[in-house]
């Protein structure tokens, strides 16, 4: 089979696993997980093979396409089930299947003993399959299939332990919140069809410049970006992601850190042509990213739940990616996406390992000193945290550094300044997380008796830690490996106005990272400061951050409550009393008329006969006059 002819296998293999596990997963028992993992690994192998064949081609010809069948044809509008592999999707499928494989492997251990073990792997496989459709689709509608499909899997997996009402609520919230963005995106797709008559990337990219006015491009780009905001949990649609941590931890790692939430970034990169025509839309993307990055960073600092810290941190890191994309540094956004997939998946899995060792405890106040009990988890987690905080030479350092470098040269100095502040904030919350969890003294019974997890869980941690540490070599500068690889698709990083020298950027951000980590060490792990007392004194501020600036409460007060009241009014007053009232009123009027009419019915035959005669005479008289 040729390379492009085997593209379909990449999403089909996990889909097969999903089908098998859904139908007979219960009977498979423990082998359900092994089967699911094997199929994702197989998909990874196929991905590596086809990407390899892609690399063999010249830089400009690196596109494989495969036509499967025609999906929709109505009039002149047609959508094919076509797959497209170019440099951008190549990076994405490697991340999805590679990191996906590791997380599947980890989940075999993590989910061991769960009554719905088979079903879990079915959903997980289904997710991988949809995610691959998302990144491999040759047109926006197929992308949308994957887009909604991963939303479905996210819903199923967040609510996997549905016996608890909070989990079910979180699942619904995630689906509905992202759906708001998705709907805007669907309108964007409709607009694109009206302009181009098709949703095929090849056509849109080829003719966008001549077809779209600036205004039209702005509208479309912003509608598409609304979809990305929902899926990638950017402000103001970020509220679902922290709650989504109700799902099992491998789910958080795979869906809510490494892959699904990055789909929004992928969308912006994929459609960057339209964003560029607009220009304004790019600014919106950059500012949304910047605001989200800072906002979520502060929230992460206020969380006590280890998974919620990571969730807000994910939101914040995604903000960085959008910031990069908004500054046209698409390849850097993609590099950050890859690096983040490594270190964030690593940290989520590490958090899962901690929870495993602590009887599902997630409150960091009850942890402490765990590095002695769980050395592998602890060390790998610290690698991930340092990578995220941007410590040289780990992967996050390069990504963040390149973004700040570009920011310094955009001619908008405040973006650079705020971006640097964001770097400090991430160092602070990461330091707090690490020192509270792994250092200091054990603050609970469970923490004292915590135990290291099994090999099936620690091996993925080690692999990911290595990845998080060395992924930096993929793109050591704005002209690195990834940048050059995806350049034919997304273009190169623009040379802006001469900004601050790179060495200065590096020095500043690196020293801020170190300062942040040091400060948190002093506060949380050195034993010199009673951080609990400090916390009590700072309580109002801490509350605000812990509740994510109360955004949920505002939404509830401004949207949910009035919405419910309006719906109740429509249903119980308007529909029942007004609309149906008119109907029943007509009925009542007819009855009233009938009541007066029935008096005429005496029941006496001779009365009727008399009326008959009277009528006949009247008719006669009338006819007589007419004659």
């Amino acid at each position, binding site marked *: 089979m040729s390379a492009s002819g085997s593209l379909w296998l990449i999403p089909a293999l996990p889909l097969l696993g999903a089908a098998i596990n859904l139908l007979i997963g219960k009977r498979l028992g423990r082998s359900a997980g092994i089967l699911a993992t094997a199929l994702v690994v197989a998909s990874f192998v196929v991905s590596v093979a086809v990407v390899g064949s892609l690399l063999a081609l010249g830089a400009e010809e690196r596109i494989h396409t495969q036509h499967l069948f025609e999906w929709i044809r109505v009039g002149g509008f047609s959508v094919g089930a076509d797959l497209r592999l170019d440099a951008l999707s190549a990076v994405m499928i490697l991340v999805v299947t590679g990191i996906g494989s590791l997380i599947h492997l980890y989940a075999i251990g993590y989910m061991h003993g769960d009554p719905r073990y088979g079903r879990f792997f079915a959903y997980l496989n289904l997710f991988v399959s949809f995610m691959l459709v998302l990144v491999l689709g040759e047109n926006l509608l197929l992308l949308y299939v994957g887009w909604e499909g991963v939303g479905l899997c996210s819903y199923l997996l967040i609510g996997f332990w549905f016996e608890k009402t909070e989990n079910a609520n979180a699942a619904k919230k995630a689906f509905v919140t992202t759906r708001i963005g998705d709907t805007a995106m669907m309108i964007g797709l409709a607009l694109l069809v009206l302009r181009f008559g098709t949703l095929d990337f090849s056509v849109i990219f080829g003719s966008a410049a001549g077809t779209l006015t600036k205004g039209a491009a702005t509208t479309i780009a912003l509608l598409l970006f609304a979809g990305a905001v929902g899926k990638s949990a950017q402000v103001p649609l970020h509220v679902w992601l922290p709650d989504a941590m109700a799902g099992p931890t491998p789910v958080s790692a795979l869906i809510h850190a490494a892959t699904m939430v990055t789909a929004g970034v992928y969308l912006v990169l994929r459609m960057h042509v339209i964003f560029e025509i607009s220009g304004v839309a790019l600014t919106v993307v950059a500012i949304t990213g910047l605001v989200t990055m800072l906002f979520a960073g502060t929230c992460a600092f206020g969380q006590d739940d280890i998974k919620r810290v990571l969730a807000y941190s994910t939101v914040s890191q995604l903000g960085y990616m959008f910031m990069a994309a908004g500054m046209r540094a698409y390849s850097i956004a993609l590099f950050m996406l890859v690096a983040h997939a490594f270190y964030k998946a690593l940290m989520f899995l590490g958090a899962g390992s901690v929870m495993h060792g602590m009887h599902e405890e997630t409150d960091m106040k009850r942890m402490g000193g765990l590095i002695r009990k769980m050395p592998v988890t602890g060390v790998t987690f610290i690698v991930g945290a340092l990578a995220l905080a941007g410590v040289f030479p780990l992967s996050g350092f390069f990504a963040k550094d390149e973004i700040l470098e570009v920011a310094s040269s955009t001619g908008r100095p405040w973006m650079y300044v705020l971006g640097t502040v964001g770097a400090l904030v991430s160092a602070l919350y990461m330091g707090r997380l690490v020192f509270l969890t792994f250092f200091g003294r054990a603050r609970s019974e469970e923490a004292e008796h915590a135990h290291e997890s099994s090999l099936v869980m620690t091996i993925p941690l080690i692999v990911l830690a290595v990845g998080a540490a060395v992924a930096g070599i993929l793109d050591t500068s704005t002209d690195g490996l990834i940048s050059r690889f995806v350049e034919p698709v997304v273009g190169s990083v623009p040379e802006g106005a001469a900004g601050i020298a790179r060495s200065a950027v590096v020095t500043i951000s690196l020293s801020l990272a170190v300062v942040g980590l040091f400060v948190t060490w002093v506060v949380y792990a050195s034993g010199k400061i009673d951080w609990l007392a400090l916390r009590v004194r700072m309580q109002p501020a801490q509350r605000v951050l812990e509740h994510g600036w109360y955004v949920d409460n505002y939404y509830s007060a401004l949207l949910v409550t009035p919405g419910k009241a309006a719906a109740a009014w429509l249903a119980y007053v308007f529909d029942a009393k007004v609309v149906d009232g008119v*109907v029943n009123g007509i009925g009542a009027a007819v009855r009233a008329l009938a009541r007066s009419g029935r008096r005429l019915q005496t029941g006496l035959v001779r009365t009727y006969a008399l009326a008959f005669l009277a009528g006949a005479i009247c008719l006669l008289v009338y006819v007589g006059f007419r004659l």
Partner: protein
Amino acid sequence: MIDHLLTIVTFLPLAGAVVLLLWRGAPDNSARSAAMLTTVVTFIVSLSVLGKFERADAAFQMVERATWVKSIGLQYLVGVDGVSLWMVLLTTFLFPLSVLASWTVEKNVRLYMASMLVLETAVIGSFVALDLLLFFVFFEALLVPMYLIIGGWGGERRIYAAIKFFLYTMAGSAFLLVGILFLFSRSAGPVGHGTFDIQQLMSVAGSLPASTARWLFLAFFVAFAVKVPLFPLHTWLPEAHTEAPTAGSVLLAGVLLKVGAYGLIRFNLLLFPEASKYFAPAVSILAVIGIIYGAVVALIQTDIKRLVAYSSVSHLGFVVLGIFAFTNQGVTGGILQMVNHGLSTGALFLLVGMVYERTHTRDLGRMGGLAVVMPWLTGAFLFAVFSSVGLPGLNNFVGEFLVILGSFAVNRWFGALAAVAVVLAAIYLLWSYQRMAYGPIHEEHSGLPDVNLREVLVLAPVLSLLLVFGVFPKLLTDRIDPTAKAVVAHVSPDHLTDVGAGAVIQANGAAP
């Protein structure tokens, strides 16, 4: 034999009904099996209609014509095109499932099954009749068995619901009859003698003054809008759905509502194209209001059947919106949605019925955690929910997208507002599913059984079609599209009608 395929499909169920009615003292199980056999055979015969159908041909096919009452020009005239073909198949497909789902009916089984079979004949007849009066006969005839099914085998307030259903639709039909008779009286001139043949009436109606055509449009429209139902003529629907037995709800949502939408396409659009264009903005606004309104009201319902009923109001709004967009994509999408809604909502009502048989309540507040004891049943429910929510890959998505696309070309606001309902649908359906299946389970429900073999046989065909038509919508659209194109060309010959490749760039200069 083969020339009378449509007649056979139409009257086979009636023959079964006659047999059942004459067979006094039939054991319950024999009555059930007889009805099942009849509906299955009807379905198989209808498949050969599908086989014979020429997909590229927009004209009426398999036409049968026989004079009935010559002096008034009444004929027996039947035929199918891309619209009615799928309606007939949807009907013949849903009936066996409904019969199978009604296996648990214990009261007066013979009469119940006979009513179902009469209903099937009336519905199929409405879809294939090409003679206005013949259509009217079938259109009215379907009220009687439906009335009996709701009133005889329904819930607590069944009599109220049945009478409301009957009177509401009868009131609409009165206008229809007046319109039909008026057209008939006008046909005597141009055609030479009076006729009810809609193909001949098309030329008659074309020669009417615009104002007359508009009044006639309204007369026809009211009758069909009640049936669809279009806001604000929808209030019979929640009552009827709630009180009807499971199969009654399935058929009401699955096929009876489609008769209304079908009537709009077949009669309003074809007979009064100019008036249709004239009223299109008003009708579209009603449809959009219905889409949002149905969804918002569904948000607050606690009775699961009422909730699905209001969601029908919302979904049927999509159908009407698509049809009255007069674009290729809109009309095809609208017709596609008629099939899709029949399947999805049919599946939902089947599932609601199964849940009700176990829990004996329709109140969402008294359910919860059912996913623990019946994973397959709730899983199937979730599948149908996501189909109804419009998840890509399942059937509803393609139709909804085409409708939004088609109406978007006409008016940006219509498309955008319709899209909002997609969010609302996710809220109310997921919320109801959550309250039913998730959370802690109620004590008294902890021993309930999961699906049995009969229920699997009911659900498997319809659920698999939800997936098949999501992945291969072309199975449907290839046969719908030529007809839709012809309808659009008839209504709106000189306008932008295709938003597909190339057509738009020149024709549509306005900024979005």
